[in-house]
């Protein structure tokens, strides 16, 4: 019985800690300048973010198209060269986006004190 009560206490403590963490997280969201929520506050900020995403999508499209081409033309060295160039450009743009607006996928660094993955909008909502 004593053990059960102890466990209950631990659970309560954990819940309290979780609540505290949530509050800290909320505070972090408000203060984190890199969080997407903050970045999407003004129209200018939205437009800057969209413009960067647009560049990423364009380079990424080049990469997709070259991948499919190279799947059936694996010995085209010119296409491989173009592919590598596009990949480098894509990596640089992506790193810039992730740094400013938060992670795009698992494995991207989180450059804020809060887990921005679950806070930024999903693509069908913006």
């Amino acid at each position: 019985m004593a053990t059960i009560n102890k466990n209950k206490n631990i659970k309560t403590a954990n819940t309290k800690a979780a609540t505290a963490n949530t509050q800290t997280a909320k505070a972090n969201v408000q203060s984190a300048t890199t969080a997407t929520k903050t970045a999407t506050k003004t129209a200018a900020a939205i437009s800057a973010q969209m413009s960067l995403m647009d560049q990423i999508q364009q380079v990424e499209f080049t990469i997709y198209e070259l991948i499919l081409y190279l799947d059936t033309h694996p010995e085209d060295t010119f296409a491989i060269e173009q592919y590598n160039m596009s990949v480098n450009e894509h990596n640089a743009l992506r790193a810039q986006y992730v740094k400013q607006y938060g992670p795009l996928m698992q494995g991207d660094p989180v450059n804020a004190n809060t887990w921005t993955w679950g806070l930024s909008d999903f693509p069908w909502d913006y």
Partner: protein
Amino acid sequence: MWIYEKKLEYPVRVDKRNPELAKIIMTQYGGPDGELAASLRYLNQRYTMPDNKTKALLTDIGTEELAHLEIVATLIYKLSKNADLEELRAANLIGHYTEHGKALYYADAVGIPFPIECLTAKDDPIADLQDDMAAEQRARATYNHLMNLTDDKGVYDTLAFLRQREINHFQRFGEALQQVQESYACKKVIVQGASITSNVAVAGTTTPNVQGVSTSSNVAGTSTAANVQGTSTASNIAGASKTPNVSGTYKK
């Protein structure tokens, strides 16, 4: 494995709410020639492909189709998001609303649920790749119909992008089919031990553009040369280029 990236392959712009348009675009979500069908078909067929090159192509196109599925879903969601019940009734979506509310559902434009039997797989690369090429053309034709039915410039632009991707996929499947047929023809000749013909066939395999490699390929029941011809003619009609369309296709 797959990793989700929190972005669309191509931007989706919807100029105004239009649940009727959402309803017809649904066919590219859960219809027999839609993006779900394409993705599942290619990702399922790839296990029994004869070589890694073809497995790579099916993996890559199957994965891109998943990205297209998300684009189509975004179109449907945005077109119907704030529609009221009267608008849903007018768009003939009241049945959908009864069953699913405003949730997306894998069904075609008339509400028929996703038909699993459309996911053909024969463990035969000739049959499967021919089927994949036909699937790309059916999807392209559906996008054509949808483009004829919309005057929303934003939606039209996204549909045009997706339509162009079907054409490019068709082109790549055609090349894969040609290469698989050439490698079959090559194997057949080597087994028969006809050395002179064998050299020709080997040269044909390493250089994909050589035409008429061998007319003795009975694998597909037709001659290789005829199929090569058929592939390039069809792709010319569809307007696909043999080289990657890196600068021309992507337009906002």
